[in-house]
């Protein structure tokens, strides 16, 4: 496929602004991490509170609906608490964490901040399965136990964390995994667990753990015919990193995904050149919360009708 055959996706609206607050720095080193985060990977660094504040101001003119905070492990950034508090003055915020470094005093402060606004503060906790046997080989020794302690802490502070799992099992096993995880969370005292399964992105560390994308894992212009492009994060999001604005949180390591220094410079259509774009295409809405999924209204002419 030549470069001219790669379909480009327009930024329909900047609904979600992401902050790569801890860059690629993480206390864990998961073997499936699509941006190879680790305690030593500083290819992307921390954002400062000033930078986040400046970007929040910049985002208003774009009508940003929600803010997401990710890394690495966001809670390694010592300014995360004031960042989240600042963002709640602008809109709803979601933080993606491994929940292994949470401190009760932080959560008390954040809970009070959330109570003081109309907006939700969501926690998405990465745990890669309902048992240590499934999770720990990927995320590291004792990480299941530590993350579950983090979940308990969040629940004790009145939060309702969304547990996200990267699927390292057969897709057909999803219902059983979800059911087992619900049971485990109930036993922990989390009475209304929220769960989300994510597909594996075969880049970064995951490409080493298993394998990367094949040459045929590409999105062609034909594949976008009658496809709801709103399922792709690049149609409604951008990411702030310490190097500027990137198209999505998945393609950080790809130079072509770095779009500009300001949001205004970073609104151009993005070509779906990467194998990871194919995963995003296949599964859709992999980065947003369930409350924010936007599913295109079917057109009667295109849809499968009932047989009367």
């Amino acid at each position: 496929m030549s470069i001219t055959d790669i379909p480009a996706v327009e930024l329909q609206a900047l609904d979600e602004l992401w902050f790569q607050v801890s860059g690629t720095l993480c206390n864990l080193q998961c073997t499936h991490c699509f941006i190879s985060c680790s305690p030593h990977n500083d290819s992307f660094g921390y954002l400062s509170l000033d930078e986040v504040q400046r970007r929040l101001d910049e985002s208003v003119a774009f009508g940003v609906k929600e803010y997401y905070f990710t890394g690495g492990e966001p809670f390694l950034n010592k300014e995360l608490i004031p960042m989240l508090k600042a963002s709640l003055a602008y809109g709803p915020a979601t933080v993606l964490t491994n929940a292994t470094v949470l401190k009760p005093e932080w959560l008390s402060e954040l809970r009070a901040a959330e109570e003081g606004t109309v907006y939700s503060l969501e926690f998405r906790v990465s745990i890669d399965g309902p048992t240590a046997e499934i999770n720990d080989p990927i995320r590291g020794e004792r990480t299941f136990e530590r993350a579950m302690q983090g979940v308990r802490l969040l629940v004790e502070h009145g939060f309702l964390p969304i547990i996200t799992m990267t699927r390292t099992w057969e897709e057909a096993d999803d219902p059983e995994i979800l059911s087992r995880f619900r049971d485990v969370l109930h036993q922990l005292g989390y009475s209304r667990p929220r769960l989300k399964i994510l597909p594996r992105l075969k880049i970064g560390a995951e490409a080493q753990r298993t394998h990367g994308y094949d040459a045929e894992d590409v999105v062609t212009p034909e594949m976008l015919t009658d496809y709801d492009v709103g399922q792709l994060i690049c149609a409604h999001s951008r990411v702030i990193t310490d190097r500027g604005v990137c198209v999505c949180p998945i393609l950080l390591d790809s130079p072509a995904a770095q779009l500009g220094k300001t949001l205004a410079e970073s609104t151009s259509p993005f070509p779906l050149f990467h194998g990871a774009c194919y995963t995003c295409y296949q599964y859709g809405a992999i980065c947003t919360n369930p409350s924010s999924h936007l599913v295109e209204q079917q057109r009667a002419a295109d849809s499968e009708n009932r047989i009367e």
Partner: protein
Amino acid sequence: MHLAVFGGIYNNYLALQAAIDDAHRAGADALYCLGDMGAFGPYPDRVFAPLRDHSVICIQGNYDNSIGNDLQDCQCGYTDPRDNYFAKLSYDYTYANTSAANRRWLRDLPSEHRVEVDGLRILMCHGSPRQTNEFLWESTTSTQFLDKLANDYEADLILATHTGIHWQRELTGGRQFVNVGVLGRPENDGRTVVWYAQIRTGGDAVAGGIDIQFVPLEYDHLRLAEEMRDERLPEEFVATIETGWWTTCLEVLPSKERRRGRF
């Protein structure tokens, strides 16, 4: 001008009749419904006569689009398998019990309605002006986002429903966004009332701007529950009508809204 605006009816014809009576008693000049006539409740065909007899101006919700166009599902945007299981039960029931003539009527409804009253541009939609089935929850919708919608769609007052919980936000320049709530089921707060909005503008408004009044509406919910049982609708749905707590479709709730409920 005094408008009464109803959200999703979800087959709750008893609440619809009560709302129409209440709006007339309050002196409303015009009645509107923002779509989703079907789902959840019993006897889908019973909502159409009151809507027509009282000249309620209706727009099309995602449910109406689906039923009207003979689609396979309600396009409700649920992600959880349990939510989709219950959504399918009620969709199949509603589809099977909506007459062909009423399905055609739903198919032909417009997806938005604009009126200009007392110098205010009012835009009525189902979910959001840009997408019929977009959930605009109070806790996950920033003010600058709503301001942008009001700019892009050239409206001073945007009225929507779809989420099932009423709320309002003041925007720049005195503009407003209002989610009018729904007549179909209570608001997940342990009360059995359902909600709609009365909107007064011009000389009917206290300060000459836009007055929004959310109305908690009592209706014969015990009769509705009984009729739902007669129709063998899921006991989970009946419990919501009887208790005011949502038991299904919880996955799409943001944390703040979810926390206020029991489940």
